[in-house]
């Protein structure tokens, strides 16, 4: 029987971690772009567009991420479209992340006092100008800590994609366990790697919150 050293295990897990990181980045950036579009529609669009954005957010927040992955993976297959696991994983996570980010950011925009809208429109600014120069610069400050905090959820969310066969950190853990028969060691290492990814994010979210609050101490 082949003996596996700890380094063998760790090396394989770390190689798979690249895919966890890549999927997290794609989800977060793609979700951020789609989420920003949703945000604009949600607060400034026509009535129908607003309802669509609201429905979208509620649908994706209200169903388990795992179901969304299954639907993306198997659902499209029903139409004869062969979806590779990485594509289904990426699409599902982008759409899921977008829903949450849109909702987080909507709260941030709505936390800006109504007087800011009134003052800027009284000065002749249109909706896009108000958003660009008055509302978003203030809302972004409020949005940074919860957004960074949510990125932790995205990283952990990628673990679910192992179920549809995308080989990221969790899936690699199962594969390595099947070869080594050392589940405790392997999954222990997997957990530690997730922690090493997520903990700095949580910490920086807390630090940012404290730092940005200092700027708002008079309010």
């Amino acid at each position, binding site marked *: 029987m082949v003996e596996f050293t700890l380094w063998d295990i760790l090396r394989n897990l770390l190689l798979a971690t690249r895919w966890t990181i890549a999927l997290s980045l794609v989800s977060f950036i793609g979700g951020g772009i789609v989420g920003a579009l949703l945000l604009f529609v949600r607060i400034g669009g026509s009535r129908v567009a607003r309802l669509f954005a609201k429905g979208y957010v509620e649908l994706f927040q209200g169903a388990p991420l795992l179901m969304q992955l299954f639907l993306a993976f198997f659902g499209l297959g029903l139409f004869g479209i062969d979806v590779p696991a990485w594509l289904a994983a990426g699409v599902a996570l982008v759409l899921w992340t977008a829903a949450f980010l849109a909702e987080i950011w909507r709260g941030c925009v709505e936390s800006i006092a109504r*007087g800011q809208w009134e*003052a*800027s*429109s*009284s*000065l*002749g600014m249109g909706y896009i100008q108000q958003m660009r*120069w008055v509302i978003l610069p*203030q809302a972004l400050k409020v949005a940074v800590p919860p957004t960074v905090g949510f990125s932790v959820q995205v990283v952990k969310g990628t673990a679910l994609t192992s179920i549809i066969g995308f080989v990221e950190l969790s899936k690699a853990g199962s594969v390595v366990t099947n070869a080594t028969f050392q589940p405790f060691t392997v999954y222990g290492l997997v957990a530690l790697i997730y922690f090493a990814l997520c903990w700095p994010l949580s910490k920086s979210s807390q630090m940012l919150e404290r730092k940005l609050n200092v700027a708002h101490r008079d309010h």
Partner: protein
Amino acid sequence: MSLIAITEVKKRFGDNEVLKGISIDVEPGEVIAIIGKSGSGKSTLLRCINGLETIDGGSIMVAGAQLLPDEVHLKALRLKVGTIFQQFNLFPHLTAGGNVMLSQMVVKKTPKPEAEAMARKMLDRVGLAHKFDAFPEQLSGGQQQRVAIARALAMQPIALLCDEITSALDPELVAEVLAVVKELAADGMTLLMVTHEMRFARDVCSRVVFMHQGRVHEIGHPEDVFTAPKTPELRQFIGAQ
């Protein structure tokens, strides 16, 4: 021709009719104080004139152009009429100078050096030239309100609407803001102000409008309105002050 012609303006919020047909004609250079109890509709009237509220009846003309609730007409109107708010509403992420420059650059597309020169001029006009680089939170309430006045003036409006601009200020800061308004009046700016400062209304304004239950109850020269009120409501209002 009147600069601002308000004709039979009506406004309701649900079942509550706040303005029941208001007609006021404002001539260029006039300074008009709108007084009345809270809930009489005076702030709502100002918010209708700059289009923050849409009207349900009647018409508002500013410099011959009718106020219509679409973005193009609203923008044209807001370039003519500046508004000062009770809560200042300065942009907290910009310096005093930045506050005065922003709309010039974004709305009027004024190049930055010119916008800055205008901002310095306007801040100087309200006595705050030295606070160009200060952020709103570093300024007193009175200073913030003067920056807000400079910000409105920088757009070179033909009239200013002032909505209880001293009501959120500590008593000792009221005078510095009123002094600025008084100077504007002396320079010939058309002013329409909702105010609780009766002495100021009496000393500076050319006409006083007393609003009561959504109507113009009395209107006239401040001397007449304050010394010889015709209606019991106005007598009671003045007596209560």
